């Protein structure tokens, strides 16, 4: 046996547990963090119950979709600062026209909006690929464009959606402990991401984020894949906008701003590397809940709003730093 082949042989078997921990450690860590926070959260209100779980799900749903949108783009080696204002745009368009629709019509309109937001993402991606202007510049410009269009559609918060549509995001199914928003989130993840993740398009997204040259030499069309990643991001942003319409009940042209940087925070917290090619969507979904839960708990605790932001920022730095140190430790050994 050769030295090299022997070395590979050694890493086989035996260490598969270590490898699992290495690959999925971060995700598991985020879920543990969420669990610990949740246990603490239970002790804060006088009467903690299914209502609290539901309101958490309502709060976190749009952010979870926004985090998915951002993560897909970051994994492909880009970044999308326009996620927040695209969410606003979808939100106001939905709220403006859905008000007097039946549920069936509203759902049809929602599907149309999803196609539109995916196209908007593809448009942003094409601009980046063909103009060769850096991602951050183009998406920053698109942030202003979508925000402006959103204000054109609806100057002040208003509009609405049919009641059954609102209940999709705010109700509960089967049991009081299962918020319908959570089910929709999991459905969106399972139907949109899972089939791609392990098929060629998903692998291509990872490959262009990991090493563009190697991806190209492997026969991946780098431009097409990057545009695809932005389109998928646009689709998730559309879902976030629709979720926001359902949970907030109205359209607000400025509502999306919150998601621009919080989506990046959730992605990073969820184990997505800003370098690209690393991470998944499972972690960022949990991270969106962590971010929302921390906010909720600080409000429950009566912490001043400004200090709450400081604490949230510190939490992100500490978590990402611990993760970074763990990775460096591993590299050294």
């Amino acid at each position, binding site marked *: 046996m050769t030295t090299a082949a022997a070395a*590979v042989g050694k890493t086989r078997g035996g260490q598969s547990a270590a490898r699992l921990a290495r*690959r999925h450690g971060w995700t598991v860590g985020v879920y543990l963090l969420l669990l610990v926070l949740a246990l603490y959260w239970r002790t804060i209100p006088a009467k903690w119950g299914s209502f609290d779980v539901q309101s958490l799900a309502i709060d976190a749903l749009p952010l979870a979709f926004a985090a998915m949108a951002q993560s897909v783009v970051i994994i492909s080696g880009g970044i999308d600062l326009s996620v927040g204002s695209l969410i606003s745009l979808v939100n106001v368009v939905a709220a403006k026209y859905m008000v007097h629709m039946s549920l069936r019509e509203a759902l049809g309109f929602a599907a149309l909006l999803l196609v539109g937001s995916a196209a908007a993402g593809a448009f942003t991606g094409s601009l980046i690929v063909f103009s060769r202007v850096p991602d951050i510049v183009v998406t920053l410009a698109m942030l202003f464009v979508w925000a402006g269009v959103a204000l054109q559609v609806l100057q002040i918060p208003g509009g609405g959606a049919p009641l059954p549509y609102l209940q999709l995001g705010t109700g509960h199914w089967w049991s009081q402990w299962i918020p319908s928003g959570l089910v929709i989130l999991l459905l969106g993840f399972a139907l949109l991401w899972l089939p791609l993740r392990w098929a060629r398009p998903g*692998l291509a997204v*990872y*490959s262009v984020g990991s090493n563009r040259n190697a*991806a190209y030499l492997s*026969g991946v069309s780098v431009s097409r894949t990057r545009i695809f990643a932005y389109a998928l991001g646009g689709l998730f942003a559309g879902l976030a906008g629709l979720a926001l319409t359902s949970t907030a009940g109205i359209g607000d042209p400025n509502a999306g701003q919150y998601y621009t940087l919080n989506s990046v925070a959730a992605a990073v917290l969820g184990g997505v590397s800003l370098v690209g090619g690393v991470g998944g969507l499972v972690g960022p979904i949990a991270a969106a809940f962590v971010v929302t839960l921390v906010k909720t708990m600080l409000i429950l605790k009566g912490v001043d709003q400004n200090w709450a932001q400081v604490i949230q920022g510190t939490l992100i730095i500490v978590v990402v730093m611990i993760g970074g140190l763990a990775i460096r430790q591993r590299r050294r050994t």
Partner: protein
Amino acid sequence: MSLLEAREVTKEYGPVVALRSANLSIEAGEVHALLGANGAGKSTFVKILTGVIEPDSGSVELRGRPVRVSSPSQAARIGLAPVFQDPALVPDLTVAQNLRLTGVQVDDVRARLREMDIDVDFTEQAGDLPLPMLRMIDLARALARDPMLLLLDEITAALPSDLAERVFAVMEDWRRQGRSVLFITHRLAEVIAACDRATVLRDGHDVGTLVPQEGGERQIVEYMLGPEAAHAEARAVEVDETEAAGGSAVPATGDATLQVSDIRIGNVQSVSFSLRAGEVLGVAALEGQGQDDLFAVLAGERRAEAGEFMVEGRTLRPRHPFDAIRAGVVLVPADRLLALLPQRSVRENIAAPRYNRVTRWGPINPREERRRVREAIDALQIDTRAQRQVRRLSGGNQQKVTIARWLASGFTTLLCFDPTRGIDVGTKRQIYALLRQLADDGAAILFFSSELAEFPLVCDRVVTLFGGRITAELAGEGADEASLLRAMHGLVEEVAV
């Protein structure tokens, strides 16, 4: 009718000509070597044939039919499968995912690897596997496409000999099936052992095709250098003899400024040499012999795995380039933009390394700064018409700025890593003269170049690096291309001087 026929292929990158009207003809059922010194255009040729880059002009025919190869995936469809110099596996995906990405059958690749008696865990991430293993997976992936022509760009460079043997077995097998292999290597022994014919490139042009078994190394080297250089070789031998009669070629005496003992880093197994003040020591090596690692260690960018080095009698263990610079050891890298602040002015660039030392905590003294910078600019004759932004200077002037900043801050040892890469001839000569001048003024200079012709012009002595060790030491005047090439291929066992 040959299997593949490339005619008059030309590729230019701005002023740099990678290929000029290069021709290549590969028969069915042969192993064809593509040879040439560093930068002769071999990799460019492979990339053009496999659709990675587009040629400026020229034509490619496959079995007599003209083809335009526009992408790697199209190349694979028409039966051309390459293994590139850099592994084409995405580090963050597992091996199996990488294979699915390319669209080859995972089972085929597994079977190919088994034939080569190699055992790989396909669920491992590519980035976690050792380089030789990645090369073998790359090879198996190319084989799984069942190509008519297999293109191997320096695949054996990163392989231990037993794995290289398996590559040769594959090549032999391919030939027996009536298919062809294009094989690029720096190891001439491999060419003679395994190849039917060889085409030699020099400066982007094909200078001839030969049968390696007939002519042997000598003929290959002659082709790589051209007839004049082969003449020069004979003359150099005479010079050598007169030198030997007249005494040592090394002018400087006294203690070593830089004393390197048993350094091990990357591909460098164990290297020792000493460099005296007033001397230019050349390091000649083929690509990938670890010369870059060696320079990085001396410049404080990386730490040696073993061994140590002394600067002016004191052991230096730099943790950071700052430590090396403070000890007087400074680097002029090949990629000038790595060393410069391209958007800033010439003055700031030259003064930048001094900010550490002069200012301490106080503000920068602009008059003192200007004076020092002016002196350095004058000394090097830098054309400063475009001095507001260094990136607007020509390559040669940029390189002078990187040297000038060390002049302004002071140093004892100058590490020049391929300082004339991509620079025009006139400026090159100025840089040679400058290096000689610096040495005469008492600097110790370590000089690596990928252009062999530079060594006799600049160096007092030259050491050649091959297989992780120093294979020969030559006097500067005796370091003609032929002797250097031979030593760089590890063909000289005894130390020449």
